[in-house]
């Protein structure tokens, strides 16, 4: 049987990694499908992370992860500036709370050096408390990692997907790949909505990357979902810290951090517990109590503030310390799985890596003369000028002066723009990641219904339907 290929490349999974690969391939004259089982891009393991832009100072030396995080850092920083992804240059302080931790600091600094990051600096107790006066008592010393910053956890994947879609990538949401069959010169994929054929398959299925890998006839790794619970504190707590406050990592975990967010909150977390089910995003009484105990020690005043939200993310942990990233030229198969929280930083570098791998494997990459279309993402960050505070914007369009979500100051104009964007939200959770609605302290007490009504109106759904689909 001779197949007509619908696509040159079918990417399975539209999280940070899949969307970044799609964007990179969109530069070339290729037919690319970005297939996502969930309702939205970035709605799986990508959506709940601590939102740190990593320098790779602490990555395992010599790994692909160390290399790609370092490269991804440079790429994402430049890209954030280009398309308007919220990013704040906070720097991080890695704090030792006892003698054992203090003794481990030099080794951490040394590893940073091995990873090519040489700006780690030792900070004495006095300087530490001068920098962060609200730290709890008993800190013994710290390392400063001046380039470890905070970034918006939601906008990068949306920017990648938006640019990819505008460049012609076929984004297929709510379509689950159920069968991956090798055929002559390519692959046939069966999905929940039908079938398609592609010359290359890229597995970027995150938590499910082991399953897709097996569907493709491989069995190199197993994903054990690792639950991470995060507590987000009220914006009024934001003045408590200026830096990302990191713990000294242990053999088993990176530990609990306290960090500002680009939305002006403070986040405390994550926990790290292996769980069995890939849909088990439950929080636990033990996890929340543990985080509160850690928070109380790190920044005692934090606990006096209201909690705005609890998020639970599942990291795609595998038995290997490194990414499951390889390109099989013979099979025309790319595996980009088992990527944990560093994927936010490394995604664009993974895109480059896959591009180069495909090129080396003989896929013809002819650049489109027009290049990637320019995009500008919404200003969601507290450090950016948001529409509600922008007199020129409101003057040009009064919808930017109609605040709907009062806690987060999101306007009707922004909800409308999101609903009409190239990758529109299909539910309230998607609207939340695009605009910040319902992310604030009232969690919908005041505006939940009005926000639903506006999205319903724009997307031709009923309020009840949206309410049913919200998470």
């Amino acid at each position, binding site marked *: 049987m001779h197949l007509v290929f619908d696509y040159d490349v079918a990417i399975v999974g539209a999280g940070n990694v899949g969307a970044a690969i799609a964007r990179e391939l969109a530069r070339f004259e290729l037919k690319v499908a970005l297939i996502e089982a969930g309702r939205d891009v970035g709605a799986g393991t990508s959506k709940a992370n601590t939102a740190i832009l990593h320098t790779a100072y602490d990555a395992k030396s010599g790994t692909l992860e160390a290399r790609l995080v370092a490269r991804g850092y440079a790429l994402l920083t430049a890209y954030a500036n280009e398309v308007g992804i919220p990013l704040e240059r906070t720097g991080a302080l890695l704090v030792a709370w006892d003698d054992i931790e203090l003794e481990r600091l030099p080794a951490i600094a040394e590893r940073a050096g091995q990873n090519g990051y040489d700006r780690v600096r030792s900070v004495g107790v006095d300087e530490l408390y001068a920098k962060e006066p609200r730290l709890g008592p008993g800190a013994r010393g710290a390392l400063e990692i001046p380039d470890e910053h905070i970034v918006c956890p939601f906008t990068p994947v949306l920017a990648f997907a938006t640019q990819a879609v505008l460049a012609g990538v076929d984004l297929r949401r709510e379509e689950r790949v159920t069968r991956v069959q090798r055929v002559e010169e390519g692959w046939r994929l069966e999905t929940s909505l039908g079938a398609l054929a592609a010359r290359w398959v890229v597995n970027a299925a995150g938590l499910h990357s082991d399953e897709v890998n097996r569907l493709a006839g491989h069995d190199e790794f197993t994903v054990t979902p690792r639950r991470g619970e995060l507590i987000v504190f009220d914006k009024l707590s934001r003045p408590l810290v200026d830096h990302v406050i990191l713990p000294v990592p242990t053999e088993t975990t990176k530990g609990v951090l306290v960090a500002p967010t680009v939305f002006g909150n403070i986040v405390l977390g994550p926990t790290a517990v292996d769980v069995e089910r890939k849909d088990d*995003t439950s929080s636990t*009484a033990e996890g929340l109590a543990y985080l509160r105990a850690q928070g109380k020690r790190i920044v005692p005043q934090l606990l006096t503030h209201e909690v705005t*939200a609890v998020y639970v993310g599942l990291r795609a942990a595998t038995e290997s310390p490194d990414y499951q990233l390889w390109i099989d030229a013979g099979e025309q198969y790319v595996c980009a799985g088992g990527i944990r929280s560093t994927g936010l930083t490394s995604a664009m570098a993974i895109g480059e890596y896959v591009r180069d791998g495909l090129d080396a494997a003989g896929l013809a990459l002819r650049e489109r003369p027009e290049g990637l279309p320019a995009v500008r993402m919404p200003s969601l960050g507290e450090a950016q000028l948001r529409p509600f*505070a922008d007199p020129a914007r409101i003057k040009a369009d009064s919808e930017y002066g109609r605040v709907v979500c009062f806690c987060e100051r999101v306007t009707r104009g922004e909800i409308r723009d999101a609903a009409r964007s190239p990758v529109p939200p299909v539910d309230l959770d998607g609207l939340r990641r695009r605009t910040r609605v319902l992310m604030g302290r009232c*969690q919908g007490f005041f505006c939940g219904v009005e926000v639903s009504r506006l999205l319903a109106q724009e997307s031709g759904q009923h309020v*009840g339907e949206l309410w049913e689909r919200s998470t």
Partner: protein
Amino acid sequence: MGAVHLTTEQVDVAVVGGGPSGLAAATALCKADVGKVVVLEREAEPGGIPRHAKHQGFGLRDLRRALSGPRYAARWAEIATGAGADLRTETQATGWTDAGALELTSPRGRSLLEARAVVLATGCRERPRAARLVPGARPQGVLTTGALQQLVYLAREFPGRRAVVVGAEHVSFSALLTLSHGGARTVAMVTEHPRHQTLAAFRAGAAFHFRAPLFTRTMLTGIRGSQRVEEVELTHLDTGQVRRVACDLVVFTADWVPDHELAVLAGAVLDPGTRGPTVDAALRTTRPGLFAAGNLLHGAETADVAALSGRSVAESVIRYFEGEPWPTSRVPIECEAPLHWIAPNAIVALGPPSHPRFRLRAREILGSRQVEVSQDGRTLWRGRVKRLMPGRSARLPGGWTAAVDSDGGPVVVHVVV
């Protein structure tokens, strides 16, 4: 950002919040001819929370009649506008400039508002599930009374069939009514306390009409469900017995927290008990020219009580305009557990020779108890206070305030064991 020049408007009083307390304050200020009074309401419709509490019973103590929530809200808007208040809807005060002007956003633009006095009447909200740190899954069907009432009354959506209501205060019974209007059955009402904290008549009515079983000394300790809520886990606080109740809706009621953001951004000191700005009997915050009223002062009272607080703050603003000096020092009033909060919660040396009445709440149902008010070990007042409980305020008489030493330590209120 600072480079853009914004228009600045000057008024006499800016009232932030167009609910019962803000509208009542504006009405009284206009009637007293204090000058230009502007009410800033962020919603498209004025009236505040009563707008979506469609049952009867609003307006008893302030308007001397019984109205439905929406009619009550509309009535107050008419009264305030009729008195001459400039009521601006879709206008949110988002912060303050360094010089003390309010930063406003509305469809008319971004602007600044300078006022000789500002009354914060921003109300309160129910703590949502996350703020209560209730663990478990995060399925659809978990909301607050506020969201429930908007859904049922404003959007006419019926979000579930079998509801569990967390809380047993006035508002919890209001949620029960809304659920009934929305066609849902309340399969459990849960409170950590040994009994409900509303009027006996409400409870009896609820038991009779809705057959809602009340689980006392019980906590909601988990939520399960993948897409929708499927069941909740209830734990008895004394026996540790765990019970699972199938439901598709969980309504978190009460557990109020004042919407204190503007007060904090203004530098006003918060009371650790109420989480609202500390105020003296004249409802003055710690920032000169900044007053606070209504449910911003403490977790919710009924709308009519909030409106009366609005009238009261107007009198203080008028005296301020007449030259009454702003107090420079104040003595805080602190509550000892099991008392939760007292309001007002500061005593000033200067000020009206009034005998304020205090509202007092307990963390537990205590009933009638001997309460002592003291300062630096010296008893200022001692007497019996009735109906001490969460969710409803007890009254503490205020004749003792004149005996407070304005140079002394904090005044302490405690239950005599």
